[in-house]
């Protein structure tokens, strides 16, 4: 029998950690992918995802049962990523440098040169373009286009009015469009 998220939360609060494990397994992909698109570095994204789940665990008592667990969790993940990217902003453009390394690795790994290189290159450029977006717009864009959240859910998660979310998305799309204008799209 599949238990609801609210029931799993209730059980966890009663001391049953297996319920929390089930919650983590349900959402680890979504949270990790979100962190990955926000931060760009796999290791740091895994750390951020872990940290988000740990924070969620200790804040579980404050979770409202009528809310959607995924929204609440992504709000925590979003704050975690923002904190981490702010801390990282003081350092050099680590994610972007790593992306360049990834691209080099991708290119050298691919057996069929042209298509694979083009694909790897365009993927890298998409990631780079997303990472270069301002934090505010990046969060909305990743939630909408990668995590599959609706405007209302993003509004709840980020605590911004729906119209502000729409405006952020519009700006993000426009910035992305300009950054990716020259990217080859043959796949």
């Amino acid at each position, binding site marked *: 029998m599949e238990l609801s998220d609210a029931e799993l939360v209730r059980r966890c609060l009663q*001391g049953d950690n297996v319920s929390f494990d089930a919650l983590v397994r349900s959402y680890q992909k979504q949270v990790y992918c979100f962190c990955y698109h926000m931060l760009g570095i796999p290791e740091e994204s895994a750390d951020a995802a872990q940290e988000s789940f740990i924070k969620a665990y200790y804040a579980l008592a404050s979770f409202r049962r009528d809310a959607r667990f995924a929204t609440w969790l992504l709000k925590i993940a979003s704050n975690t990523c923002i904190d981490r990217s702010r801390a990282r902003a003081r350092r050099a453009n680590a994610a972007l440098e790593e992306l360049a390394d990834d691209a080099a690795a991708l290119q050298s790994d691919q057996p069929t040169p042209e298509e694979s290189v083009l694909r790897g290159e365009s993927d890298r450029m*998409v990631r780079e373009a997303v990472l270069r977006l301002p934090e505010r717009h990046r969060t909305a864009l990743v939630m909408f286009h990668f995590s599959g959240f609706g405007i209302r859910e993003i509004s709840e998660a980020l605590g911004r009015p729906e119209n502000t979310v729409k405006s952020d998305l519009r700006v993000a*799309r426009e910035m992305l469009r300009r950054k990716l204008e020259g990217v080859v799209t043959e796949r």
Partner: protein
Amino acid sequence: MICKSAQEILNSIFDGDEHALAAEAREHVRECDGCREWYASTMRALDLMRSSPEPPVPDIAAMVARRLPAVHPASVARQSWLLAGLAACWVIGGGALVIGLMVAMRWLSVGSIVHAYSSARTIAGAFGGLATAGRAVAEVAGHVLGGLGGAVAGLGPVLLTFVVIDLAGLAIILLVWRRRPRITSACLI
């Protein structure tokens, strides 16, 4: 329709909204070179984003399980409260028992013993000798038993309180037992 309005409408469609003027906006895009180019490049950017591969996901659950305590702190706090309540019940229950015993002792010592002593003296004075000793003993026993009965009757409310409190204590123990933290394989990872 002007370019700005058409792009606004198409943007709201990208957001997942319905728009009454969607057909008009699309018509404008077909006719206007600038908007057509804008629309094509936006769609291209969105397609690139949608088709970018998902990264391989590490086993976050195992990493998280290693960093969690055996049970959630909220459940530990609740158990502490329950145990505190349990202890309080037992202390109060114990107090009630002591008071009950004291009352019983008082009734026995003051009531029946005095009665028995005075009865024995009266009987012995009136009849004298060992022949009446048996009657005296019976009289004393009767008073002792009477005093004991009175003591038990007097203790009724105290005993009842004690029983109620201890039943509550028992219920709390059962509750704690049922909600006890379960040490599972996830806790041991």
